[in-house]
């Protein structure tokens, strides 16, 4: 009989399956794991296989997990891109500002481009200070 530590690992993985699956296959799955480990299959390999199987099962029979998985993947992607984790309540407004600055604002005055218009105070946040926008209109 495999060690209790090995079986605890497998049982942890089996607990990731939905209850309905466990009530049907749980006992047999534990027995198969026990036999495979006895035959020399590493316990972590058996547990990993069940873990992946549990994730797939949940995606197939519990569609709401698909939404959760999608949200998780998006958060992971956002985190890897350096987006701050704490998406503040003003995030939509900020996003709108960015979109606006890239699409609707006219190019700021810049003598290098021969533009004689006066600098628009909106570009320095209304502080009246030096123009802080680049030549592409990004502030």
């Amino acid at each position, binding site marked *: 009989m495999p060690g209790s530590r090995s079986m605890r690992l497998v049982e942890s993985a089996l607990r990731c399956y939905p209850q309905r*699956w466990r009530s*049907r*296959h749980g*006992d*047999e*799955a534990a*027995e*198969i*794991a026990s*036999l*495979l480990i006895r035959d020399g*299959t590493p316990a972590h*390999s*058996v547990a*990993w*296989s*069940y*873990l*992946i*199987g*549990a994730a*797939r*099962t949940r995606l*197939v029979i519990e569609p709401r997990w698909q939404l959760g998985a999608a949200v998780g993947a998006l958060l992971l992607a956002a985190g890897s891109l350096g987006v701050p984790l704490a998406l503040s309540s003003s995030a939509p407004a900020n996003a709108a500002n960015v979109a606006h600055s890239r699409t609707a604002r006219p190019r700021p005055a810049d003598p290098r481009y021969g533009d004689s218009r006066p600098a628009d105070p909106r570009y320095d946040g209304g502080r009246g200070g030096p123009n802080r926008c680049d030549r592409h209109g990004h502030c």
Partner: protein
Amino acid sequence: MAARERDDNGGQDVLRRAGDASVLILTSLADGSKHGYALIQDIKGFAGLQLGPGTLYGALDRLERMGLIEALPAEDRRQPYRITAAGVVALRAHLDSIERVSSVGRLRLGLGGI
């Protein structure tokens, strides 16, 4: 491609996208009913690879949903499965498809057709 055309025209190779594990399980069940551990051992014997138990159960559930296998009454903790008539038809169609590809591949490699 001929195989593609057959599928588009209502061909019977429903296993084409079912995955290798499904084909191995149906092949194993073709000579009689088996439970999970027996399937793993049999597949290891004739195909030389050991299915992970998670992969096995995923494929068993999928095949059962497709009506290609059915569960028999459990014996103790073990749940035997057997291939259905639809499973036999699907396996035969898939093996025919593989055989066609195999013949073409062997011819093109200069190994001669089967």
